[in-house]
């Protein structure tokens, strides 16, 4: 068939770039199909959401530390309906709590580390000109954006934003105020967005790798994005189904999650009944456990990139790490009911889920161990990204280890739904993933802007964040041990709450100080764009392909399509002149 000849290939999805080299502002920056512009959009939007989610929690922490006392200065700015006299109402507290979780998980961290870093760095690291489906990539961002707006719009619904926790347990969420409906619609958008994004990632990694870049030459970060994309692809749809079912319960009056004979505030509910409240938890955690790994795996990937570059040493146990990653991803689908031990679970099924939970801890240990052993006999360069990456290791270890007593059903009886759980998963996600994301920002900033961030400000940012983030989360373990339940508006109603109130106050002050500690980062982030030191294409002297492209890379990324000759982390190779051996250079060129 003559039509299949080469020149027809130019009529691919983005052929119009040939015809119109000068794209208008809208096409260039807003409806761009360039993975880098989309990546930056994702990252900036996600950072905005992270800041927003964090400011919500900083407000909450006043009520926790000084219950019933008016919030100084800022409290006066709030409407009398949510904070009369500057004192937060419990329903506003619950709204803030639910929205903090939702914003951080679904609008902040995942879009930052997957949508932002994944979109920007992954195609560069595999030597691709763009994502496999650039238009779908753009759609993914805009659907996410709309989802975020819908989520925020729920603050304006009568009765305030969703207030049933980020887990939205039924029947509470079904009987909750209108904000919950917005939450569900927002979730449907976000799930659709991550579905579009994840299939794009998978296809890109499978189809668009540069010549010579076999799977076992992929940077660890690309592997982490690959596994993450599979988790998003297969774990999110059940939550979409669950969100539809909950919408039906709320809007059409069905009883999927509503058992017979509910009496709310003395009023017999009109639901026909026959539903199962636990069905929601199954469908929710079927997503949300893999989601935990979605939150952490790209973080591990970024840390691996930063550590290898700054130890000037190959990654220890690269293959084992990849196998562990795949195994983690696989196992994450069969551990979810460990979030449900105390819903009334029998011995056999709880033992099953506890066993899978213990098994899944091993690959995490393997990855962490490999990263630490990489430090052995290396030459550690204490750059700002490296500081964040190094801090990630012990703090992720704390997060991981404290998961152990929660995974043992008997110990979970005491610790479930206490602050211990909060401390545990925040250690994984906040000093874990967010520190990894900071490492990533400092590491790839020169690639995105062509300028490096200020190291002095970076170090101030690091040390302040490191100290205060521990001040926020360590007290939570002691509160949890004492039996303080999570999501309490005022723990001092309980004697055991009163006794550990000191820890709460410490945690609150930690949070506010942590907020202040971000000022150097925000300044650094913006000022360096104009005033940062101009750097070469490969300022860190790294080996992976993204550093072979110009900084910032043009649309289409590489001037010449790179060919890959070796593994991703060939540092300090004996017999070479420099201490790094880029993937795309031949022996002669190096």
């Amino acid at each position, binding site marked *: *068939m003559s039509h299949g000849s080469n020149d027809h290939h130019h009529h691919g999805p983005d052929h119009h770039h040939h015809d119109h080299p000068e794209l208008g502002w809208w096409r260039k920056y807003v409806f761009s199909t360039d993975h880098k512009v989309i990546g930056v959009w994702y990252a900036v939007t996600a950072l905005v959401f992270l800041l927003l989610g964090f400011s919500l929690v900083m407000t909450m922490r006043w009520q926790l530390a000084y219950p019933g006392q008016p919030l100084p200065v800022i409290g006066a700015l709030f409407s009398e309906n949510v904070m009369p006299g500057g004192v937060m109402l419990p329903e506003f507290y619950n709204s803030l709590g639910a929205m903090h979780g939702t914003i951080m998980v679904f609008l902040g961290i995942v879009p930052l580390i997957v949508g932002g870093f994944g979109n920007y760095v992954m195609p560069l690291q595999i030597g691709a000109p763009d994502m496999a489906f650039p238009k779908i990539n753009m759609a993914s961002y805009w659907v996410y954006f709309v989802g975020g707006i819908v989520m925020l719009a729920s603050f304006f619904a009568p009765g305030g934003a969703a207030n049933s926790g980020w887990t939205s347990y039924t029947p509470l969420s079904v009987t909750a105020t209108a904000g919950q409906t917005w939450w569900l619609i927002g979730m449907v958008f976000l799930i659709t967005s991550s579905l579009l994004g994840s299939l794009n990632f998978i296809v890109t990694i499978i189809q668009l790798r540069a010549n010579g870049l076999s799977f076992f030459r992929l940077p660890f970060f690309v592997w982490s994005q690959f596994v993450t994309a599979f988790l998003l692809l297969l774990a999110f*749809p059940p939550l979409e189904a669950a969100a539809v079912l909950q919408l039906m319960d709320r809007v059409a009056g069905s009883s999927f999650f509503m058992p017979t004979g509910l009496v709310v505030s003395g009023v017999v509910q009109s639901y*026909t009944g*026959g539903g199962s409240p636990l069905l929601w938890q199954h469908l929710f955690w079927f997503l949300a456990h893999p989601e935990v790994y979605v939150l952490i795996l790209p973080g591990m990937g970024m840390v691996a990139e930063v550590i290898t570059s700054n130890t000037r040493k190959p990654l220890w146990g690269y293959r084992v790490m990849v196998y562990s990653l795949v195994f983690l991803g696989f196992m994450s689908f069969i551990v979810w009911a460990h979030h449900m031990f105390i819903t009334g679970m029998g011995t056999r099924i709880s033992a099953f889920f506890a066993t899978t939970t213990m098994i899944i801890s091993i690959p995490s240990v393997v990855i962490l161990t490999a990263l630490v052993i990489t430090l052995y006999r290396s030459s550690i360069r204490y750059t700002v990204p490296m500081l964040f990456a190094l801090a990630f290791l012990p703090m992720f270890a704390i997060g991981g280890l404290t998961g152990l007593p929660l995974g043992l059903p008997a110990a979970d009886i005491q610790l479930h739904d206490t602050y211990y759980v909060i401390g545990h998963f925040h250690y994984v996600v906040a000093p874990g993933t967010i520190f990894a994301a900071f490492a990533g920002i400092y590491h790839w900033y020169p690639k995105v802007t062509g300028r490096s961030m200020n190291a002095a400000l970076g170090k101030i940012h690091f040390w302040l964040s490191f100290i205060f983030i521990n001040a926020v989360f360590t007290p939570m373990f002691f509160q949890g041990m004492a039996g303080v339940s999570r999501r309490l508006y005022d723990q001092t109603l309980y004697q055991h709450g009163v006794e550990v109130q000191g820890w709460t106050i410490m945690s609150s002050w930690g949070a506010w100080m942590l907020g202040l500690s971000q000022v150097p980062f925000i300044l650094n982030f913006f000022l360096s764009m104009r005033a940062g030191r101009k750097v070469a294409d490969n300022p860190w002297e790294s080996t992976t392909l993204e550093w072979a492209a110009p900084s910032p890379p043009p649309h289409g990324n590489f001037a010449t399509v790179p060919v890959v000759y070796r593994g991703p982390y060939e540092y300090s190779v004996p017999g070479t002149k420099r201490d790094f051996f880029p993937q795309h250079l031949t022996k002669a060129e190096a």
Partner: protein
Amino acid sequence: MSVAVLPHTVKPHPITGVYSGKLGTWLFLASEVMLFGALFSSYVLLRVGAPHEGPAAWPTHDQTHLSWKIGGLNTIVLIVSSVTMVMAWANLKMNKFAKGKMYLAATLGLAMTFIIVKLAFEYIPKFTHEPPYLPSTNNFFALYFTMTGLHGLHVLGGVIVIAYFLGPGSKLWHRDPEYFTNRIECTGLYWHFVDLVWIFLFPVLYLL
């Protein structure tokens, strides 16, 4: 600014043996399996856990008011549309554009028949029945409306895509027939999946 053209959009990747669109479609279908899987899982859980008496009890055959005749008719309609879909692709593959387009039009017609039958003989009579059968009636109807509704939305999505390729999308054939044929193949994969879901929905909702 020069832009490198994305490889493997039309021709299969020499190593993975598939062009990007087809792989993407299959991945999308994998996630769809999980979406409908969650609904089927909910069906099993709710049906097994339903009370044995009272208004929330699972309805018997007489109480479901679903006619296997209409369901069966729609099953046949979807199966025929699957055949016409695959025939459309086969004819395009054999370079018979007119015939392929005809089959595509037939698929579109059958898809719309399915929706019309669904609305006219099932949804509307149930809503207007006295008393009406609604999602709030019991969990059988709630599941029936949710599952067939979601499936119906998928059919509607298929209608839009097929209509696009019959209309403005068909220009692509004159530029790059192979690319167009590939797109029809991906549409077909989706369409067969919609058929496949119905193959399970029919016995589960109408017969069991």
